């Protein structure tokens, strides 16, 4: 666990009744290169369209996972490590790192479960 949590996330008490989505915003031309979970679970991919017509990619995972690592080709606007998109999420952004080529950029985002005190 990263000790210096920032952003709007907070410790979640009383278990994880709600598994709110973690949102990672990326450029429209981004490609999801890989998604890996610490529990080895297989993610399910689904392309969904919002009411405003914007395309999303929804990745559903088993709630037993503690960390998820998403690698995308493109810049990710998950902002800085520790920021949480929405206060109801049980996960926060552990780290964001980028690699560069002549053209595209590869961003690796690691999300970690917020510690739960039952």
């Amino acid at each position, binding site marked *: 666990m990263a000790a210096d949590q920032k952003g709007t996330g907070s410790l979640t008490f009383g278990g994880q009744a709600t*598994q709110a989505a973690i949102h990672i*915003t990326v450029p429209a031309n981004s490609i999801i290169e890989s998604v890996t979970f610490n529990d080895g679970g297989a993610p399910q991919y689904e392309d969904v369209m919002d009411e405003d017509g914007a395309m999303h990619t*929804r*990745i559903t995972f*088993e709630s037993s996972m503690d960390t998820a690592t998403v690698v995308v080709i493109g810049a990710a606007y998950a902002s800085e490590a520790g920021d949480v998109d929405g206060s109801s999420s049980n996960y926060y952004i552990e780290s964001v790192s980028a690699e560069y080529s002549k053209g595209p950029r590869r961003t690796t985002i690691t999300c970690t479960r917020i510690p739960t005190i039952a």
Partner: protein
Amino acid sequence: MKSGWISPWWQAFALPDEWDVCGVAVPPLSVWHVFALCNLGNAYLTKSTPDLDDAASLLLICSKDMAKGKELLLPNMANKRCRNIIKMAKRIKGLDAEYIERACGEYVDTCTRTPSRFSKGGGTGHPPAVPFTWHIVMLMSDRLPGGLTAAWNMPYAYGACLYDAYAEMKGDDSILSTAAQEMEDNWEYYKGIKGTKQIELVGSA
């Protein structure tokens, strides 16, 4: 993925056994050819502006395998080398200069096209001290029946792809995926795409 795009992996595998470049029959550019031409400062490999001498030198080197090419590069063969380059230059001189440059450039670009790599921004890496061609030879000489000679004479693009495959097996995660490579090769198109999308990670019960 844009139609008509060919991945460097497929291209390296599908390189023809022989090329006709300005009427000269040459094999695909080998590891040896790349090493020699880089050391000779050939403009087609150093990406500077080539002239007729560069084209003649390229075709002369590439028309020979390592053993014969090495003989030609020995110091006491300088006169013969010059004569051969002049002879080669005369052979292609009648052709349009633009055509020569385009044909030689296409030959070199195709035969040296290899997968790209990501690098960490502001990373702590350092440039390799050993020329890449030697890394390929080191890796392949034990794996080919012909040993060192066969490794030097193998097509450069094929050897580079094998080297990258080996590197990834050993944990190198910097090689561009096919999708990313396609994006890089068509970057002018992709970089102009506006808008954003969201990736949602949603936990199931």
